[in-house]
């Protein structure tokens, strides 16, 4: 199928056309143009993901650990805590704890 002479002729013509019609500072021109392009929202989030992947993963693990610890701690309270109290590891709010001036005292110890 391949004709070596035809192949050579086409190669020669294309090489000359490419060389003749490509400016030497084309990469500079393209890079200048690229710097003016604002990344799309999708691209922006992709870039953030690639750049901060380890930090994002560590943060997610930290938050998961924090939530499981708080859930575990909340089981020891006598008064059942609300979801917000479980998530943030807060002592359940009761009349006694609300008026208590002792911040360190757990509601489980207050009669």
């Amino acid at each position, binding site marked *: 199928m391949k004709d070596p002479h*035809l192949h050579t*002729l*086409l190669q020669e013509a*294309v090489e000359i*056309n490419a060389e003749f019609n*490509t400016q030497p500072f084309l990469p500079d021109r*393209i890079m200048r143009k*690229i710097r003016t392009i604002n990344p799309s929202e999708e691209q922006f989030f992709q870039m953030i993901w690639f750049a901060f992947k380890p930090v994002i993963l560590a943060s997610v693990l930290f938050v998961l650990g924090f939530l499981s610890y708080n859930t575990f701690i909340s089981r020891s309270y006598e008064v059942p805590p609300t979801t917000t109290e479980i998530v943030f590891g807060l002592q359940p709010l009761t009349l006694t704890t609300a008026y208590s001036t002792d911040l360190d005292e757990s509601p489980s110890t207050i009669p």
Partner: protein
Amino acid sequence: MGTISSDEILLDRARKGDQNAFREILEQHQHTVARTVAGMLGNTSEVDDVVQVVFIRFYKTLHRFRGEAACRTYLTRIAINASLDVLRRRKNLRSRFISRDDENKTLAEPGAYDSESERFDRIQLINSAMNQLKPHHRAVVVLRLIDGYSVIETAELLGIAQGTVMSRLSRATAHLRTILGPILEEEN
């Protein structure tokens, strides 16, 4: 293989926003893209602009390019599509404004020119012959005969069957041989 792995490293850096890495990719593949575009469009100043369009499109889709194909193949696909867009626009314009005189060039009488102008004339004739091919036939010729892709790769790049690649190539080369016959005889 080395190029592919270095491409992967550069692509990874470019995806993270490193513009120097993108520039390196650009410098590595600029010539390949320019050849593909020049093969598709011929001798025209549009080559420069289309090469620019190709790299800007590549930059914009960088985060979507996962490296399933080689960087060169991906760029070639963009180059072919961008060139086909230009040829489509050119066809619309030509049908309204431009004459077809330049497409019907014939080879000069042997010995009528010195070697340099003969060479120039020969290139002009090849360009003219390529311009007479249908855009999709031209794409097959460029990918197979100029860029050196296999039938399978060409079929994948153009999204057509392998049989279609072979039939288009056969028709296109027959047409080119008819027009370039005198030059090919000289070469032989």
